[in-house]
């Protein structure tokens, strides 16, 4: 019992400030985005759900971005309505670049790597979004 507890303690990551490059928590670096609960009966959300629970099941998780494009699209539509569709379509065409000047940061979890591209990276210029950093 003691050996099991010791092994678990040794294998667990230590300290809320631990990370690769800086003493901040994983959560601080990648804060969990607020979950969007789709309103029932909305055909737009129905389309996302059908995609996520049918095509993705057969096709597998192939999106190179984080969050995946269907979740991104749901959040974009929930937050910006019709403009969110534009954001979602723009996301589908994009690869590893934020723009021609800068690559998206790579998010690594276990053996999987993806490009970290939250909605806030693209909707900062739309009305109603707080600007965390001036530009």
């Amino acid at each position, binding site marked *: 019992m003691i050996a099991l507890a010791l092994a678990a303690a040794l294998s667990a990551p230590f*300290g*809320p*400030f631990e990370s690769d490059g*800086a*003493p*901040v928590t994983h959560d*601080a670096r990648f804060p969990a985005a607020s979950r969007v609960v789709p309103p029932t009966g909305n055909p737009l959300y129905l389309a996302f759900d059908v995609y996520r629970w049918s095509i993705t099941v057969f096709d597998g998780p192939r999106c190179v971005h984080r969050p995946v494009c269907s979740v991104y699209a749901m959040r974009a539509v929930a937050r910006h309505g019709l*403009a969110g*569709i*534009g*954001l*979602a*379509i*723009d996301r*589908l*065409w*994009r*690869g590893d*670049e*934020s*723009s*021609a*000047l*800068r690559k998206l940061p790579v998010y690594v979890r276990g053996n999987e790597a993806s490009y970290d591209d939250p909605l806030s*990276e*693209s909707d*900062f*210029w739309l009305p109603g979004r707080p600007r*965390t*950093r*001036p*530009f």
Partner: protein
Amino acid sequence: MIALLSLALSAAAPPPSVAFADHLYDTGDYYRAIGEYERYLFEDPAGDAAAHAQIRIGQSYLRGERFPEAAAHFDTIAEQSRDPALRGLARLDAAAARSRGGEQDLAVQELLELVPDPALSPALRDRATYLLGWAYLLGHDPDLAIRTFGAAAASPDWGREARALASEAEGAKRLPHRSPLLAGLLSAVLPGAGYFYLGEPGTGLAAIAWNGLFGFGVYDAAAHRLWGIASVLGVLEAMWYGGAIFGSVSGAHKFDRDAWRNYTDGLEEEHDWRSATVGP
């Protein structure tokens, strides 16, 4: 006997110390350092090192990149302390935390109030002026940044950095720019053309291909009088078309933001902004 033993034990207990907390802080274990400083303040709230522990808790948050917590902690010190020097240091660090957290307007406001404060030591005033220059620069006001860095040019601690930054801040006026209006108009004329203007030919080609495919589908279905299919494809094509325009406008905003990020990241790497914000 028990009373004597407890007396002996209490007499043998060492006085509270911040030595271990300082060790944790120096080794970069800020999370645990905060706990040790808190322990010291709990055991000896009026001790010789109480002010040191209070400031170090805030600086641990700051170095741990917990900027709102750091600012709130320094605000509390500034409100509660009776020592003018400690108040000045706490106000300076609170402004530094806000600047690090991206709240440049608030940082500028606080630093402008702080710099003329006679209670501030010359070294802290120099640091405040240097940070004010950074806050102006990161707040996208290079002209005021250049003037403020000029005011800090004689500082023994920050003068060399300030002089270099006063000249490099000119670069903020020459950053590459893309017009969202032009990008959107180009994609309205030819869906995806705006992406070429933004320097993203791959995205532009993808947008042209999708729009061309669906556009041809609408045309072909209409030519064969398949109005149902033409309508469905038309709705989808409208989404792709709108997405190309919207994405081009968004891309121009992102281009400008990334130009600014690259510029400030380069400055922050080359010049010691972070150490100025956390102090010695």
